[in-house]
C-alpha cells in the first residue's frame, strides 16, 4: 500500500503548483472570467504546451485537478479533458479529436443531463432515429458544461428502449454548428460557461456514433465516475485553500481586543473543517484508485462514498469559511465567497448527497 505520488506525478503537481502561483492570481482569474467564453485562450494554449490537456490517467487527473481547485481555475478543464475527452478516449475517438484537444485546438462539451433526469444517467428522452445514411437527433439537454464554447458536442441519446431503460443508449459526436443545434448560454453560479442544448432534427452521419449502439451506459457511467472524482479532487484544492485561509484570518483578525484564533469555539470549528477535509482526501484517493477496478460494486462503493464525503465536507467548509470570515466573507472583495460558490456547485454536480447515499443504500445486501 502506498499513497505516494510517482516522480512524474510529482512533476505534474509541482508544475501546476508553480503555474498557479506565478500566473493565476486574482486578477488573472478575473480576466479569464471576463473573457469571451469565460476563459483565457492564452492560458488554454499554455495548458496545451505543458501537456496538461493530454492527461487522462485517474491519479494524474486527481493531481492536476486538486491544483486547479486550489487556484480556483475557471478554464474548462473538467468539461474538455475529464468529461468529453474521457468519453472519446473510451469510444476509440473515431474523429481523431483527442490529439487536437491535447493541442488546445478544439473545445468540447458532453451533453448528458436532461431536465427531467436529475442525476440519473439513464433517464434519457433525447432520441436518435436511424436514417438511410446516419441519424436524426432530437431532444433537450441541460447544464451542458462548456456548451457555448464547444466545437463538438458528445451527445447521449436513446436509440432503443423506453425512458429510464438501462440499455438503449448511444453516444454521438455532433458538430456544435450543425443545423438544428440550439445552445442557450448561461454562466454557472461559480463562473463556468454552460448552457441548455436543444436538438431539433439534427442530421449526423453514420460515423457520428461513438462506441457500440445501445450500450453506452456502462461507458458513460465510468467516465462520469471519473469526472466526478476529478471534480472531487478540485474540491479538495478548494477546501484546502479555505481551511488555510480561515486559519490565517483567525490568526490576524482581532475582535474584542483579541485575535479570533483565541476563541475556543472558532478553534474547535476549524478542527472540524480540517478533519472533514482530511477524510474527504482519503476517500477521493480511494475513489480515484478504484476507477479502474473491475469489480463494479467496489467501484460504486468507493466513488459514491468519496462523493458523499466531499459533498458534505464542501458544504461544511464553505459555510463555515463564510461564517468565520463574517461580513467580508459575504462579499466579492474576498475570494473566499468564490470558493464557497464553487464548492456548492461541486456538491450538486454529478449527484448530490441524497443521490449518492441512495446509490450506496441500494447496494446493501438485504
Amino acid at each position, binding site marked *: 500500500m502506498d499513497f505516494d505520488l510517482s516522480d512524474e506525478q510529482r512533476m505534474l503537481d509541482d508544475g501546476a503548483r508553480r503555474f498557479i502561483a506565478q500566473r493565476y492570481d486574482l486578477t488573472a482569474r478575473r480576466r479569464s472570467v471576463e473573457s469571451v467564453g469565460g476563459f483565457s485562450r492564452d492560458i488554454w494554449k499554455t495548458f496545451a504546451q505543458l501537456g496538461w490537456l493530454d492527461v487522462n490517467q485517474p491519479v494524474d487527473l486527481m493531481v492536476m485537478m486538486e491544483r486547479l481547485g486550489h487556484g480556483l481555475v475557471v478554464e474548462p478543464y473538467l468539461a474538455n479533458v475529464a468529461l468529453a475527452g474521457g468519453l472519446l478516449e473510451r469510444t476509440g475517438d473515431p474523429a481523431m479529436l483527442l490529439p487536437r484537444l491535447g493541442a488546445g485546438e478544439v473545445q468540447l462539451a458532453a451533453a448528458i443531463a436532461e431536465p427531467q433526469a436529475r442525476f440519473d444517467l439513464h*433517464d434519457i428522452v433525447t432520441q436518435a432515429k436511424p436514417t438511410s445514411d446516419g441519424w436524426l437527433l432530437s431532444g433537450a439537454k441541460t447544464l451542458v458544461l462548456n456548451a457555448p464554447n464547444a466545437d463538438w458536442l458528445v451527445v447521449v441519446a436513446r436509440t432503443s428502449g423506453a*425512458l429510464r431503460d438501462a440499455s438503449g443508449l448511444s453516444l454521438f459526436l455532433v458538430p456544435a454548428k450543425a443545423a438544428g443545434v440550439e445552445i442557450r448560454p448561461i454562466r454557472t453560479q*461559480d463562473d463556468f460557461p454552460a448552457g441548455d442544448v436543444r436538438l431539433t432534427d439534427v442530421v449526423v452521419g453514420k460515423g457520428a456514433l461513438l462506441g457500440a449502439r445501445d450500450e453506452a451506459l456502462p461507458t458513460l457511467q465510468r467516465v462520469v465516475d471519473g469526472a466526478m472524482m476529478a471534480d472531487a479532487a478540485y474540491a479538495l484544492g478548494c477546501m484546502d485553500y479555505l481551511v488555510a485561509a480561515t486559519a490565517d484570518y483567525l490568526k490576524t483578525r482581532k475582535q474584542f481586543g483579541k485575535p479570533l484564533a483565541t476563541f475556543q469555539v472558532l478553534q474547535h470549528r476549524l478542527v472540524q473543517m480540517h478533519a472533514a477535509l482530511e477524510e474527504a482526501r482519503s476517500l477521493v484517493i480511494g475513489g480515484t484508485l478504484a476507477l479502474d477496478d473491475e469489480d463494479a460494486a467496489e467501484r460504486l462503493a468507493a466513488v459514491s462514498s468519496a462523493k458523499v464525503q466531499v459533498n458534505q465536507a464542501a458544504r461544511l467548509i464553505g459555510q463555515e469559511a463564510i461564517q468565520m470570515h463574517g461580513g467580508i466573507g*459575504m462579499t466579492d472583495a474576498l475570494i473566499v465567497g468564490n470558493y464557497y460558490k464553487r464548492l456548492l456547485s461541486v456538491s450538486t454536480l454529478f449527484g448530490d448527497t441524497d443521490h449518492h447515499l441512495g446509490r450506496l443504500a441500494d447496494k446493501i445486501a438485504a
Partner: protein
Amino acid sequence: MNLKETAEDRAFRLAVREFVQRELPADIRKHNEEGWEPEKDEMARWHRILARQGWLAPSWPKDYGGTGWTLMQRHIFEEECALNYCPPVHIFNIAMIGPILIEYGTEAQKQRYLPKILDVEEWWCQGYSEPDAGSDLAALKTDARLEGDHYIVNGTKVWTSLAHWATHIFCLVRTKKDGKPQEGISFLLMDMTARGTSIQPIPTLNGQHIFNQVVFENVRVPKENLIHRENEGWTVAKSLLDHERLFLARVGDNKKRLQRLKDIARKELAHGKPLIEHDWFRRKLAQYEVRVRALDLTVLRFIAKADSGQGLDPSVTMLKLAGTELLQDLLQETVDALGYYGLPFQQHGIANDELAPPFGPEHAIGASNARFRSRAFTIAGGGSEIQHNIMAKHLLK
C-alpha cells in the same frame, strides 16, 4: 392553557390577510415569492399602501402613528405579511431610528423626522460597523469633533446596508478618546447629501448591491443632530426595543419557504417521479415541519408571556439563532430540490444580461440568490456566535 387563536385575533388575522391579498401589487408579490430582495421602488409602493392604512409602523406608540396592537397582533400581522409574500418594511426607518427618536429625540427632532418616515419620503441607513469594529462596536473610530455649532466627522463605515437608497444615516461616532471605549461614543443624525460624504458599493458574493462603505471627510453635522447626550450614544444604540427580538425568528418567512419547498418538490422529478413522493425526501420535509412548528410555538409562547405582562423570556435570544439557521437550511434545501437548475447564476436587475438570463423553470429563478443572501442572516445584526455568548451569559449567571 389554550392554543386556539382568540376570536378577536382570528378576526384580526383575516382582516390583515384580506387587506394584504387585496392591496399587495402582483408584481411585488411575484418578485418576493421568487426569492429576490425587494427593489427600493417596490418597498416604497408597499410602504405607501401600509401608510395609508396606518400600518406602516405598528410598533410605534399610537400618538406617533403606531397601531397600539398587542404583540400577538403584531406577530399575526408580520406572519400574514410574510405568508403572502409582502416585502419587509425598511427596518432602519421603522424598527430602528423611529423608536430611537421617540425615546431619545427632542420634540424638534421628532417633528422634523418622524413624519417624513411615515410619508415614505426619507430613507435611513445605519452607520455602526467599521472596518476594525464588526461585532465589537465599542472599537469604533469614526471621529466627531465639535467646532462651534457643528460636529466635524471623519471616518469610515462598512457593511452599511442600502446606504445607496438612503437620504439619511444614523451614526455612532467617537467624541471622546480616553476612558472606557463605550463611554466616548455619541449618536448623530446625518444627511447623506452632506458635502464630504461618499459611498462605495461592496458587491456581495452573489453579485448583489446591498452593502456599502460610507466615507466621511470633514462632514459638518449641525450640533442639534445629536441624539441624547454627548458620549452617551452607547445607551441609545443599546436601547433598541427588546421586544423586537421576538420578531427575529422569521416565523412567517420560514413557513412560506417550507411551503414553497413542498411546491417545488411536487414539480421536480427524481428517478422518474416527483421528489415529494420519495420517502427519503418526505422524511426531510417532516424534519423541517418539526423545526418550523417548534419555532412557531416557541415564539407564540414568548409573545403570550410578554402580552400577559410576565415580561420577556430571557431565552428570546435563541429565536434569532433557531429562525435564521432554519431559514438558511430551507433555502439551501430548495436549491437542492432543483437539481441542476440550482446551479446557474441568475440575477435580478441584470436579467437581460447575456450572462444571467432567467433559466430553467419559473420556480427555479430566484432560489440560488435567496440562498446566498441568507448566509448573511447568521452574521449580521449580532452574529450567531455573539448570540450564543449572550445566551450563555444568561444561563451561567
